[in-house]
């Protein structure tokens, strides 16, 4: 019978001795999720800002869709991206399936509604007097917008951190579109799933510990950002 204590001992050994395979998997995870976060922030922040700052027909509908997408099951995203990128899909000619880029696309889709919806919430909470103050002091519409976004900075940072937490812990979508290819598309969560199946718990536990530590760091950052935001308002 497998000893959990022995498994933890070996896992810690892998971490302490900076096992090359472990490091490669961690780096790829950070690279894929980091890129997805940059893309989703670049797309989600303008959408969140637009819906937060402007009133236009269909705004409520867009927010309903974004809020719904926040709870999107990763496997559904994986299935959708798979169908789109598979050989018979509309973008099959690009041969992106089972590549890190396919994983980035899937994670970006997962993170986008979180960044957009939470940025929207952060911006609509800003006192409307800020907008008027900025306008009456001679700001251009663009300067008014940047003033509002700056005021919502802590909420927006919290949105980005929350999205990062979501994509780092995600397994369903990237397993489907990445294929879990060793040394190419194998990241922390997919490795844990595979190694557990194989009964190779040392690597799975080591990655589990790293993932938990990352989650702890993300949540501490989120707490500190939210605390700073609360203290300053």
């Amino acid at each position: 019978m497998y000893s959990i204590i022995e498994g933890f001992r070996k896992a810690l050994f892998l971490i302490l001795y900076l096992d090359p395979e472990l490091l490669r998997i961690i780096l790829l995870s950070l690279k894929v999720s980091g890129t997805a976060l940059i893309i989703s922030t670049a797309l989600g922040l303008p959408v969140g800002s637009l819906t937060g700052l402007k009133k236009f027909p269909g705004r409520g509908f867009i927010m309903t869709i974004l809020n719904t997408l926040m709870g999107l099951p990763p496997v559904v995203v994986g299935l959708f991206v798979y169908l789109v990128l598979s050989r018979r899909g509309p973008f099959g000619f690009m041969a992106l399936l089972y590549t890190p880029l396919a994983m980035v696309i899937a994670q970006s889709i997962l993170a986008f509604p979180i960044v957009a919806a939470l940025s929207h919430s952060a911006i609509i909470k800003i006192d409307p007097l800020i907008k008027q103050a900025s306008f009456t002091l001679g700001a251009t519409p663009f300067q008014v917008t940047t003033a509002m976004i700056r005021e919502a900075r802590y909420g927006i940072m919290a949105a980005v951190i929350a999205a990062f937490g979501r994509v780092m812990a995600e397994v369903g979508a990237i397993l489907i579109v990445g294929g879990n290819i060793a040394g190419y598309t194998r990241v922390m969560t997919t490795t844990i799933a595979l190694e557990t199946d194989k009964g190779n718990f040392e690597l799975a536990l080591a990655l589990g510990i790293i993932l938990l530590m990352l989650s702890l760091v993300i949540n501490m950052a989120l707490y500190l950002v939210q605390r700073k935001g609360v203290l300053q308002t």
Partner: protein
Amino acid sequence: MGLTLAVSHVFKSYDGKPVLQDCSFPFEKSGTYVLTGPNGSGKSTFFRICALLENPDRGKINYLSGSILIEKNIELRRRITLLLPRVGVFNMTVFKNVAYGLTIRGANSDETGERVHKALDFVGLLQKKEQKALTLSSGETQRLGIARAIVTEPEILFLDEPTASVDLENTKIIEDIILRMKKIGKSIVVITTHDMAQAERLADWLLLLKDGRIVSAP
């Protein structure tokens, strides 16, 4: 040539209820105009229209430089400023709040520093320049709003009920600031208040807004 304002036959109503009716007045001389009237008489609406925050239903707001009509664009907005009864404070230091109007105009840091110091000194907040603006008291916040408004040296400054939400001590300080601005006398300052005694203390020209019109003129 200094900026002047001519309000001509302005009408404004909300949900069918008239607020301003055929309201006209020329603001032509530098000095302090005080617009009085009971709460709900339309003073704030009048200010919001003059400061280009809202459009009138009918009538004209003409800004002039001599006899030349000035186009309502960003350049004009940067020559006038409105201070609302509740000051919207940016989540940054007192210094950066006051510097905002200069920063968005692209002023260099030396000029900004000098002018912000002068404005903060004028309103008695120089010692608090590094303090977070959101931690100021309501009276100090109002003074911050005045510093932020005057630092850009607007040619026409609208102060909407500047002492409505402050205590007696800060009311006196703000009145003193306005009286000192009056002595400098470079711009047109238009103030609303429902306090008649205060209106008389501050005004060069006392105006009354009644039934949607400015009925009392100098």
